[in-house]
């Protein structure tokens, strides 16, 4: 194949209670790293990562909350034109699961109605025993069962995963799952921040370039 696959930009927003591992999940996905005792998010809240799924390439533009969720102060801008959202909770913290329900509801109210949402129970590593199996003894740290997570996801009609940002378990699967689920026809519409080649960009201007740089509809589109 001599032609590169078309790249689709997808704005993906992260939601969830503080310290459930939102940033760690993204860091694992973007750079395959994990930081123990990571400080609350500072300084980097706009990450991009390409993800190849079959014949299509998705460029995720990942928006972190930048801590603005702490006092319920997320701006409408955050949800604007988001095509995907990951709602994260900590499977060892029941309160974070209750909060996850709240965020799913918030997304239904604030975000566009065709948004793809994934519910993610993180910190699976905490419920594994030394041999890598899930510890189903009474001592298990798990407080939210896999069934509870799955039931919520089923009720809301959204995707569901359990992950470990620490050891990487199931993390890529979340982003691939979202990529598979995003409706093809909507990839290029209503995404002002996506670098789409053929979206409705007529008259949009790029302030960072110097002059006469107006994106015209259909301009530069590769129709081959």
């Amino acid at each position, binding site marked *: 194949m001599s032609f590169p696959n078309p790249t689709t930009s997808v704005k993906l927003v992260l939601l969830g209670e503080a310290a459930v591992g939102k940033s760690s999940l993204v860091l694992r996905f*973007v750079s395959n790293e994990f930081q123990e005792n990571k400080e609350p998010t500072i300084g980097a809240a706009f990450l991009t990562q390409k993800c190849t799924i079959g014949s299509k390439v998705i460029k995720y533009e990942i928006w972190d909350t930048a801590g603005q969720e702490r006092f319920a102060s997320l*701006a*409408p801008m955050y949800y604007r034109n988001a095509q995907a959202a990951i709602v994260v909770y900590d499977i060892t913290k029941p309160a974070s699961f209750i909060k996850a329900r709240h965020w799913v509801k918030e997304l239904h109210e604030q975000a566009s109605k065709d948004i793809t949402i994934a519910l993610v129970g993180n910190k699976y590593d905490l419920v594994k025993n030394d041999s890598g199996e899930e510890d189903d003894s009474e001592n298990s740290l798990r407080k939210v069962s896999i069934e509870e997570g799955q039931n919520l996801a089923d009720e809301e009609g959204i995707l569901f995963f359990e992950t470990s940002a620490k050891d990487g378990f199931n993390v890529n699967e979340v982003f691939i799952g979202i990529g598979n689920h995003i409706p093809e026809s909507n990839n290029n519409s209503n995404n002002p921040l996506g670098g789409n080649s053929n979206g409705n960009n007529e008259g949009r201007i790029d302030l960072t370039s110097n002059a006469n740089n107006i994106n015209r509809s259909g301009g530069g589109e590769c129709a081959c």
Partner: protein
Amino acid sequence: MDENYDVIVLGTGLTECVLSGILSVEGKKVLHIDRQDFYGGESASLNLSQLYKKFKPSAQKPEFLTGRDRDWCVDLIPKFLMSNGELTNILVHTDVTRYIEFKQIGGSYVYRSGRIAKVPANESEAIRSSLMGIFEKRRMKRFLDFIAKYDDDDVSTHQGFDLDKNTMDEIYTYFGLESGTKDFIGHAMALWSTDHYLTEVARPTYERIMLYVQSVAKYGKSPYIYPLYGLGELPQGFARLSAIYGGTYMLDTPIDEVLYTDDGKFAGVVTKEGTAKAPIVIADPTYFPDKVKKVGSRVIRAMCILDHPIAGTSDLDSVQLIIPQNQVGRKHDIYIAVLSDVHCVVPKGYYLAIVSTIIETETPHVELEPAFKLLGERLDTLMGIADLYEPSTDGTDSNIFISKSYDASSHFESTTDDIKDIYFRVTGKPLVLQQRTTVEEEQALNGL
């Protein structure tokens, strides 16, 4: 939440958010509070419910207006950004352009002798313009050549004038310009809202004309750009910048008490979340009503909901329309900002026209009549009158730094002047904008 900060910022208007963002990027620990449950304060864009709650509290939002609540983003303060203006510069340097998309405003129009005419955006439009006769066009061209070629260091370009000594009227007279042309230059290009500038030195007018010309040259249709989803995106974008660099945000949090040191300096605030301390506070005028004074003039603003574009504007999706004061026997110009679904501020099929001027009489709504005539039939009109405030001291004695109200001008140049002025008073140094690190650098940073 007993915590210490470097700076507490009260109010999430544009001025406060830009300062909060810049100070956070510089490493200051910022706590940013708003008593309201939405971003933007006086510079917010309201959805339909918020809009009617504010301006017609007794009335329900009308049934005849369609679309979802959040499809409406109605600016409280009608302004556009100059493409080459200082706010654009700040947006680019702070990389807040990452979060906000902009489109041009389709055209700039001026009212003259009972009808409206397009302000020429380039030379060929100027030649075809109905605003001037053929001889006047030549005089105008000579004047604009003078402005474009004027070089402080080259006396031969001065044509005997000194921009810091000669008045604008003297320069107009030299070029033999008609009064209508002066109106056009002073009000539609230099964007003065009164004729006071005529008898003042020419320098500020020269700079304003240059800003206009350079802004038009940048993208072509008009000197203005505008953010999709309304001006309220601007404070949100800078608030996000601040948060990314560690700023803490608390909306819906009224200030229960302001704390002072024994010698009367700012010490902190008490809210429902607890006590927060900082040596410095930056606030909009509503947070310190006893430390501000009225500027004297009041502004009337009318948000008009239409289902049609403005007659005579070639059905453009967005327009600025200026009614120069002496065309309608006033002392202050009337501004009309027209927007549509192209800028995502109303649902498809609607147009929003925001009319504003400085009040001159006891019946301010009547003063807007010349504008209403140009708009044609209105589906609804919401009016508000605002006093303009400024701080009564520079704040250095109390460490309480208060911003000015958003004025009646059609752009943000006075707002960015205020931002720079407050920055200087707070930090003791002039604001120098540095380019933020690139996405790649930031990603590398994140991995550390």
